[in-house]
């Protein structure tokens, strides 16, 4: 008999393994398969381009882990934390820590849900790989934070922060939305919106920033995690094409999901704009440039051109996100600066070089500068009392300016069941109006806190149940953390001016 080629071999290793159930009805084995209206005719035409089987996977991943942990161990052993150019960077890392890490973990469980419920063998093995990959990411990240937690504030109870802190509902609402959708929608949510459109912008520009400020560990985290994402992106793109090719009746369903999940992903990643533009003292790239490269060029001008032949158009609110790129990071920084006494990641007083960089990169920044300048007299000058009114969909404070008329808020309202629901933008309003029943089920922290869920004293309860203390919040340069970092550097002799 002739030897099988690579393609046939992979075929035998993955898609030939399952069978059509004989003793139980197909619908009993796969109860969700017809619920979303997706029509499948012959999905076997699809090929998983990566062809990474078990043996290859464990070998490559083990080697990648080895490379990463070597960098990580060296960083930890050599006081890497004290050697970054400015300790405020770690406030940004905290945002990443308490948001992205729990998100990775959720993605792990979601991929299991997708793999279990979509009986398309052509894509299934990729989902099995991804389910275990996402656990890898969650664990690589949490392991690093376990080390950091011994040196900096705010990370010592990430699970509690993630479960109970008001702003953490932003990331949770994205992943919980995907986990409670049907499996095909969840696939589009994770593989298209999360993986294909946005993980590049999450891991690569932020890894560049990490490299620029001297956080070699975080640069390595970003790159090693993202190296798995290229497989996940390939899954997303191919699954998308396959569903579109299966039946033209799938096209409007998919378009609806692309519209929804593009905007969901875009809003969830809003804090990344600020992490790229604000927290690094040395900035290799701006959000605007990163957005243009990774979203406008690689997604809109790349993938979506390829999808035109199926009748797919750009996500409905793509234009809004392009308009917002001039404002995004400033808006988010301003919002979080206002609530800096209620988050584990401190805000900070901008330095002159920050003003200069922001001014040069963003013509619109000058509208925000006077507000931020008020912090020079009093770092709490912009602090807003209490908790903000949040968007019913993305859970961010509904305080985004309308990019067409920046002096007005973009806030939208919908009526449902005799109640008025507020959303932060036309994009989120669209998402709400598609499935109002779902979005009224969100856990709304402000209301929960005030109704006594965390005890009589909502402020104390918030700190207690989110694993924080008031000293861990506020402004960075006036914090105990900054003082400690300076002390650490003195101890290492890094404070000496050598030239």
């Amino acid at each position: 008999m002739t030897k099988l080629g690579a393609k046939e071999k992979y075929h035998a290793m993955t898609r030939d393994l399952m069978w059509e159930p004989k003793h139980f009805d197909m619908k009993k084995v796969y109860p969700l398969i017809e619920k979303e209206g997706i029509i499948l005719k012959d999905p076997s035409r699809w090929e998983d381009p990566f062809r990474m089987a078990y043996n290859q996977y464990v070998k490559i991943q083990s080697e990648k882990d080895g490379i990463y942990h070597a960098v990580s161990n060296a960083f930890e052993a050599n006081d890497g934390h004290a050697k970054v150019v400015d300790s405020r960077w770690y406030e940004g890392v905290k945002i990443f820590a308490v948001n992205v890490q729990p998100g990775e973990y959720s993605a792990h469980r979601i991929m299991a849900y997708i793999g279990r419920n979509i009986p398309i063998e052509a894509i299934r093995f990729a989902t099995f790989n991804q389910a275990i990959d996402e656990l890898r990411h969650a664990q690589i990240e949490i392991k690093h934070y376990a080390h950091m937690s011994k040196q900096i504030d705010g990370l010592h109870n990430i699970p509690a922060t993630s479960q109970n802190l008001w702003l953490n509902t932003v990331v949770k609402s994205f992943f919980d939305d995907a986990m409670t959708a049907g499996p095909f929608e969840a696939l589009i949510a994770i593989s298209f919106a999360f993986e294909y459109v946005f993980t590049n912008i999450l891991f690569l520009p932020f890894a560049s920033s990490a490299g620029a400020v001297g956080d070699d560990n975080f640069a390595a985290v970003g790159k090693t995690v993202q190296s798995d994402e290229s497989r996940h992106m390939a899954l997303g793109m191919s699954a998308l094409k396959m569903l579109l090719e299966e039946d033209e009746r799938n096209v409007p369903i998919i378009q609806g999901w692309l519209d929804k999940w593009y905007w969901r992903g875009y809003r969830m990643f809003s804090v990344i704009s600020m992490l790229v533009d604000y927290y690094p003292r040395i900035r290799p790239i701006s959000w605007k440039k990163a957005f243009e490269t990774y979203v406008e060029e690689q997604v809109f001008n790349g993938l979506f051109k390829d999808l035109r032949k199926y009748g797919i158009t750009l996500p409905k609110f793509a234009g809004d996100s392009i308009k917002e790129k001039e404002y995004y990071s400033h808006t988010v920084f301003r919002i979080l600066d206002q609530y800096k006494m209620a988050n584990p990641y401190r805000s900070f007083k901008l330095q002159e070089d920050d003003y200069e960089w922001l001014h040069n990169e963003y013509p619109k920044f000058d509208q925000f500068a006077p507000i931020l300048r008020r912090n020079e007299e009093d770092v709490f000058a912009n602090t807003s009392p209490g908790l903000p009114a949040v968007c019913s969909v993305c859970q961010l404070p509904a305080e985004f300016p309308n990019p067409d008329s920046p002096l007005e808020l973009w806030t939208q309202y919908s009526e449902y069941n005799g109640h008025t629901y507020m959303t932060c933008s036309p994009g989120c309003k669209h998402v709400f109006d598609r499935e109002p029943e779902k979005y009224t089920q969100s856990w709304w922290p402000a209301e929960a806190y005030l109704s006594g869920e965390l005890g009589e004293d909502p402020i104390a309860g918030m700190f207690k149940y989110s694993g924080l203390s008031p000293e861990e919040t506020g402004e960075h340069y006036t914090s105990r953390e900054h003082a400690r970092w300076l002390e650490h550097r003195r101890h290492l002799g890094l404070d000496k001016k050598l030239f």
Partner: protein
Amino acid sequence: MMSEKQAYVGMDLDTSMGSITNALIAAIEEDNEGVIVEDFAVYKKVKAPGKMVVNRETVEEHLGADFDMDQVHLAMSSCFGFIKDWDEEQLIIQWDEA
């Protein structure tokens, strides 16, 4: 809304993979037209209009050592474009229509 400007395919290569990354970039430049390399310090973005081919043999020439196409996984932090084929000899990334 969709502009008709050139769509690129490509990959983001981890610079900490050193000689492997350098050899990949050299091989891509040799085997493809119109390659652009952008330096983002911790990674390099290598892109080509519409289609990109990576050949094992060319990589080996520049690396001066045996190269297994699986090693691309170690250096490739990300990619954009459809992966058309990836076997022992070559990797092809392309857009169909763009």
